[in-house]
């Protein structure tokens, strides 16, 4: 019962930290998309470059988030941004690179070659092929990459509490230091629920953005 008591007593705080959590992801994800999708498109036709880029993005992902936060604090200190939201955002952007670039790359590359040839044969320029053919067909896969990144962002943001970004990490880390298990539990449940909710919301968005014809032909398969 202590669990619910805590929630009722600290409703305001919970809403505040939840919104902060969302705010961090809400800023970081678009930045990651703006950087990652064009990179994915740009390297799609250059297999060698693509390999290198994917390799680098994978390495970035293996850096423990705590280490990354530590680096940010030092690197951003001269700009007075070592503490707070900026390191959290940058870290999420860095981690998001792999799923977003990789999925964009695969999506654009895997578009049926017959379809692309037809488009070329009809006199589309390569820019037109990209925006009228490749990207609309690639939306579902690109969106899957974003979902991946968003869910990861939820967990990374939790740790960002340690560099003063606040967010739901507050309940977990404060709870731990005060040995208040209820707080930790509330924090963990909220983070989990947010992750699931985020995934579901983006799934709905994906449904909305996927062209009708693509959905129809997938259903057929």
């Amino acid at each position, binding site marked *: 019962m202590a669990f619910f008591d805590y929630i009722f007593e600290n409703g305001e705080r919970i809403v505040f930290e939840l919104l902060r959590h969302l705010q961090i992801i809400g800023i970081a994800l678009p930045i990651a998309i703006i950087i990652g999708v064009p990179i994915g498109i740009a390297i799609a036709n250059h297999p060698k470059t693509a390999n290198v880029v994917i390799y680098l993005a994978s390495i970035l992902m293996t850096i423990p988030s705590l280490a990354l936060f530590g680096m940010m604090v030092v690197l951003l200190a001269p700009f007075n941004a070592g503490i707070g939201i900026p390191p959290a955002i940058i870290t999420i952007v860095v981690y998001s690179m792999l799923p977003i670039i990789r999925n964009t790359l695969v999506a654009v590359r895997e578009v049926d070659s017959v*379809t692309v*040839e*037809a488009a*070329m*044969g*009809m*006199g*589309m*320029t390569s820019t037109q092929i990209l925006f009228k053919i490749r990207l609309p*067909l690639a939306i579902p896969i690109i969106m899957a990459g974003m979902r991946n990144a968003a869910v990861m962002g939820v967990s990374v943001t939790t740790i960002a509490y340690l560099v003063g970004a606040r967010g739901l990490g507050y309940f977990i880390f404060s709870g731990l230091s005060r040995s208040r298990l209820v707080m930790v539990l509330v924090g963990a449940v909220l983070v989990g629920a947010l992750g699931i909710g985020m995934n579901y919301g983006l799934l709905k968005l994906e449904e909305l953005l996927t062209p009708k014809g693509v959905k129809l032909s997938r259903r057929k398969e």
Partner: protein
Amino acid sequence: MQISLENLTKTYNKGSFKAVDQLSLTFEPKKLTVLIGPSGCGKTTVLKMINRLIERTSGDILFDGKSIDQIDPIQLRRQIGYAIQNIGLFIHMNVFDNIAVVPRLLKWPEKKIKSRVEELMELVNLDPQVHMYKYPAQLSGGQKQRIGVARSLAANPKVILMDEPFGAIDPINREKLQDAFIDIQEKIKKTIIFVTHDIREAIKLADKILIMDNGRIVQYDDTVNVVKKPKNAFVDSILGSDRVLKGLEMMPVKDHYSGNFLPINAQEVKTIAMALEYLEKKKKTYAYVIGPRDILLGYCTVEELKRMDQKDELIGQVKPIESVQPHSNLMEAIIRMVESGLTSCPVVDAHHQLLGVIRFETLVEIMSAYERVEV
């Protein structure tokens, strides 16, 4: 538009493999030319060099005398219709948007595009009301193929390139599409270059056939001439052992039937006895029977008339018979002969008026006129 190839060559692997080798020929305007040959003979390569999806190694392609190098490839492709085997419809676009692709690239006003799309859908026999806003996933294979053809015609190109456009369709629907396509070409009269590996399709559709092997021309001639006079054993093998019959399929009855025959007019020859007398006088074993306004009623044979009651009215004893029309082909006439067991087949017009007969001797003459090819 007249398209000429001059020493057109495409090599791969630094010249070690010649996909197309010194090809020189002219595609006749407003005619349908079929490129045929075994896989790897270079037919698709030739097609794709014409819209520069593949760049040639040497030689030239001339459009009304103008070198392909002087034409911007993007503009060139927008002026050439293109239809391919797996159709390549854009699955995220509905039928309307698919057909409208090139007109939109050419920045036609939307109103003009809409009326053009409707016109084209009617041309390929798809009801715009029903199908215009459907997506490819909601169409059958045959319908998709029709949209593919409509799309290639969208911006009214003078030239259309087709790479096995009916290849992925089951045989029954393919026949239907080919028939529809013949009607369409009859109406639009475009310069069409059509790649296939199906010789039946080639003979059925082509005004001219270009047979290729190892990147070179083996024979390039009117379809009739190719079928009648295959240049060598290779062409003969492509045409197949039944080429004589295939040839009959492309010859219309109207060029070969005879109006010189003696039917029995049932208005004058009223009884069995009179019919028998007439046939014996003319030394015939059977005759067609016509009624008022030369309408074909059927036929009667001496053998059967003899066994009948001689006082009976002829008109009640006439046996019905299947006929052909002038636009039918000689193959159909043969089939009718086999069905009836007679040595001729009646030719009638749309009102079933008897115009003449096509005789078995004529067919034998035509078939024996085919040159034999020594293998």
